[in-house]
């Protein structure tokens, strides 16, 4: 199913990409929604099982993590999924997080955190909506009032805050 997400670009080999000038295409990760990608075909990256990454990861597309990440994740797209094989040791900032695997660290989501039955989570969850399914292992605190953590969301719009307070 991951393959379908990229099915939209069949002729990419043919499309000539200016090789000159642009030495640093994505030096700054400024939020650039919709303009550079078709909203109809959401992108999905798969971070496979054998992948081990130590460091900071930022992403602005939907991401499925089946590997291991040690370090922080800054995710700004619709959904970040930690798959059944995935393991994250570090803090996560995202809009919506679905956890099926293992997380050690704090999870901050501006929209929701879903902890599936197969998940093992050790850390704090901060989001306006949090789901914890029967069977999941969880140790930590849950805070559904992200307004008190607005600073930690680093200027990201938290869904609940949208109505009450301004930016």
């Amino acid at each position: 199913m991951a393959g379908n997400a990229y099915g939209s670009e069949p002729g990419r080999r043919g499309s000539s990409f200016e090789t000159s000038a642009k030495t640093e295409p994505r030096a700054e990760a400024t939020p650039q929604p919709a303009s550079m990608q078709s909203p109809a075909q959401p992108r999905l990256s798969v971070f496979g099982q054998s992948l081990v990454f130590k460091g900071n990861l930022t992403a602005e597309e939907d991401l499925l993590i089946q590997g291991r990440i040690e370090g922080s994740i800054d995710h700004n797209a619709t959904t970040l999924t930690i798959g059944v094989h995935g393991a994250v040791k570090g803090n996560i900032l995202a809009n919506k997080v679905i956890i099926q695997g293992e997380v050690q660290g704090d999870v901050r989501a501006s929209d929701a955190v879903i902890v599936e039955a197969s998940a093992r989570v050790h850390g704090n969850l901060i989001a306006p909506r949090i789901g914890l399914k029967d069977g999941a292992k969880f140790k930590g605190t849950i805070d559904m009032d992200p307004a008190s953590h607005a600073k930690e969301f680093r200027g990201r719009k938290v869904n609940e805050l949208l109505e009450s307070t301004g930016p």
Partner: protein
Amino acid sequence: MSNASDKGSILGPTLVLKGELIAEEDLVLKGRVEGSIQHTASLKISKEGSVKGNVKAKQITVDGTVEGNLFGAEAVAVEASARVTGDIHSRSVSLIEGARFRGKIDMDYSEGAEARPAVSRGATTGK
């Protein structure tokens, strides 16, 4: 082999990884990695992809940008759209016309030789 998505990983164009990446499955990199990559299968750095750091893999195909050294246990292919600044170490190196490359090419590379780096002054693989 543009569709490696059924097996292996794809790191999309908005991904920025700062740190050390280790992988044992086929990988298509469309995002940016700042740091080293240790890889035991085939790695493709596609057009949108860029790496700043050393890359070690079995097979490396570069369509994008690399600033750093490439170590290919089997082969390194630098495609026409690639921009590579750094040294290439592999027994089999191909460089397609149109690619931009600046660095050394060393075809005497065998895996493990670089495990002892920079200790030697004259004799690299002393026997």
